[in-house]
């Protein structure tokens, strides 16, 4: 076979391998129900869950636990997913910097026993995407 043909076949082979790895490594956005089901089936792959923080009637975040004086690497909170399911989440790192101000939270991890262990938290802060209130700056 011509050298260039061998060359081409190898390249196509590698490209297919790349596509398969991408598909295999890609994660999915799921709800907590699905995450729990996966864990029960013995599937430990990491998933993404989108949700909002649990708040009380006044809009303050409740059930958030971070005691750096006891253990700086332990942070726990409750997340409410799009199906309104509430789930306890543990994150073995300090509380992320703008956690209190986030509208939406995306966590990556899996269910372990009855708790979702997150190894990544991505925050969506409203002020980054929505116009800021003009009245906050001094007026003439």
């Amino acid at each position, binding site marked *: 076979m011509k*050298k260039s043909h061998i060359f081409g076949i190898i390249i196509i082979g590698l490209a297919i391998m790349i596509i398969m790895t*991408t598909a295999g490594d890609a994660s999915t956005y799921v709800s907590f129900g699905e995450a729990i089901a996966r864990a029960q089936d013995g599937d430990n792959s990491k998933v993404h869950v989108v949700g909002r923080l649990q708040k009380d009637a006044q809009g303050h975040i409740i059930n958030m636990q971070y005691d750096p*004086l006891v*253990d700086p690497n*332990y942070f726990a909170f409750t997340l409410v997913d799009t199906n309104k399911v509430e789930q306890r989440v543990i994150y073995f790192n300090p509380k992320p910097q703008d956690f209190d101000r986030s509208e939406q939270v995306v966590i990556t991890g899996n269910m372990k026993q009855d708790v979702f262990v997150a190894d990544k938290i991505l925050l969506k*802060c409203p002020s980054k995407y929505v116009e800021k209130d003009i009245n906050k*700056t001094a007026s*003439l």
Partner: protein
Amino acid sequence: MINTLIGDIGHTSVIVAFVAAIVSSLAYFMAARTKVEMFGDTSWRNLARGAFYVHGAAVLMIIFSLFNIIYAHRYEYYYAWSHSSNHLPIHFMISCFWEGQEGSFLLWIFWHVMLGVTLMNVGKKRKEWEAPVMAMFSFVQIFLTSMILGVVLGDVKIGSSPFILMRDFMADAPVFSMDPNYVPQDGTGLNPLLQNYWMVIHPPTLFLGFAATLVPFAFAMAGLWKGKFTEWIKPALPWAHFAGVTLGVGVVMGAYWAYETLNFGGYWNWDPVENAVYIPWLVLVGAIHTMVAYRRSKQGLRASFILVITTFLLVLYATFLTRSGILGNASVHSFTDLGLSGQLFTYLAVFAVLAIGLLVYNWKKIPATEKELTTYNGEFWIFIGAAVLCLAAFQVLATTSIPVYNSFMGFIGIETNAALPADQIAHYTKFQLWAGLFVALLSGIAQLLWWRKVDKASFVDAITMPAMLTLLFSSLIIILSNKFDILPFKLDNWIYITLLIASLFSVFANLSIILGLIHKKVALSGGAVSHIGIALMLIGILFSSGYSKIISQNNSGLLYSREFPDEVNRDNVLLWRNTPVEMDKYSVSYRGKFFEVAGVPGYVNQEILFRTADEYKAIARADIKAGDKVYYKTGDTLELSTPENTYYELEYKNRKSGKAFLLYPRAQVNPNMGLLASPAIKSFVDRDLYTHVSSIAPEEKEWSTMKEYDIAMGDTVILNDYIAVFHGVEMVNKVPGVELKQGDVAVQADMQILGETKSYHVHPLLIFKDGMAGYYPEEIGDLGLRVTLLNIDPATESFKIGVNTTQREWIILKALEKPFVNILWIGTLIMAMGFIMAIVRRSQDGNKVMPKSGAKVSISNKRKAQAV
């Protein structure tokens, strides 16, 4: 009063630029037609040139208008209000330009104008190429200026103007219905993460790289259009190098900014925005190599067309990805969606159809050599290398586009919820590491074959020395790292070892090429220099990322939960103020909060600054010194350059040598973004020590209830387990920050408190003013004490003081070691040097082509042959 003039000037200039671009591209198109060229009719070309210059002038006007709006603090304009503020220093005002999408488009447009004007006026063959190439340029400018038009046609909004007024942008805000001429007094400021030297230079360099990829593309398209399928490579090649170096250096500048400013502990996170600029660069490097191969042996023409076109299309795709909002949940960097996604997609689609269409139409006409390549041809290995680069680019592209697949599937009605891989770094690294390894190996082998006769003996001869040196040095490093403790890592992972060997091989092989050329024409060794640069970058990445070590292990033994032993990490450690903690070979203690004072080098302790109502002004409580020089005396008013930033002084003491140094990681509590922390980095020769604050004690301290003590002069008393001596009181005439009038009495007490390592003096004040008593207590942060002078009884000569205690201050810290990261930065500089050498060589006379494969470079032989 609202100044609408400058906005109108700016907006009109955008429209002028847009129209002039249309005129210029049409005129250049007409000028490029074969009939016109044959007749020597230059009228179209003159019109086109004029139009392009008008376009350029209009662009400069746009820039001037926008800069004026920002510089003169015209907050009636949305751009100034949302990206700048009154206290922004001038050099950061330049950064404001590109914080917003409109401004960064403007930067790109500006670079195209510069490049276009250069192409029109410089270069030998420009008359021949000017019309078709500039037609492409102007055509691109039409699309880019349309992005900042801000014009509404019926229901459709075209572009987003940087000159929009606040009252038009926020038409619903009630304040404007009350007063249409309302002007905010201050802006919301530049994102604190962008207030950094690197953010002033990284975007312009990166955008210059983007802009420069248009040049080889325009030449390729011109070549296809005019049937000049082979001649375009020579003029385009130095420009391709230029694009390669600016884009490459721009990307590394971004990495350095991330390293210095963000605190994810590294310089590259495989974030979609980072990937979007990395992918076209890889393909561009591939294109450069196939073009170089063509210059020497006429092979790789079709590949060059494909790669040059692909590079430009990938740049447009990157623009689409980052600016259209399609990334949504996937990236921390997603910019605000300006509703431009339709326009961006159109831009990409038009050029994709145009380029691919032209290429396919002319495919058969492109000359392709039939000569078969053997394994001893340098060109053969270059093509393998280009293929490796393209596969690497493909891998990153495939994964980064997952949100696009979701969108596309959603568009045709299928709901997919694919997300990016959970562990992005591992996913990309597993391919990119091997790509890097092969690139290093191939850059060595190909170079050795390129400069020699095409046969086995020559190759074996060339490879012997580099191979031996490689094995020697690799073994040395492996043994040193595993058996002795000199190096900050243990090289025992076979993949890393292979990468090291491949990179060292590239270094030595390319070094041998440079040494071989030193006696002949060292200016030809640009490629070898760049390859050494890349190999060093790979080595730097190998050590600093592969062996990055967290040294702030929490060894206190306190763990909140032991349920999940595998997951638990101890990467962050709590530091009480002034209590040292052991980290690796250091004893680290947190010593207090500091601020930046204008005019004073270093940082000033918060405790000697008396804050006033104006957060930018403070009064010195003691002499402000740096080294031996006194900058301010007690009572002087000074200016805080960045009052929102607090610097946390950390003392690192090497336990064995006793030598200590100070680091000042920075944090601010931002009203919109929460706690923003930036690291402090200490660079040693063989590693960087990288420290950042993860969490801080709340500003509002909770004080205990006050305990009162009756004391007399000279008394010793125990305050919260510390011994304190009351030295007495004195009357004072001046109190910083307080106006004392006739009849006012101010008394200051002097107490000395003995802490664990040093003694402290406090001077609480009691001021009688206007018949009332004012208390001015003093705090000792180190001890968590606040002392107030409550009462003086001159009759009994006794004094009453009140003491509150609080929990001592703390911070949560994370510290990492990055071995040999400096090799990465040094490698980048060397790579850039090599590129520049190549640009110089290729733009001079490209006719001094390399000897055809088969002839040894030997000038003396040639002369002998000619003499015969």
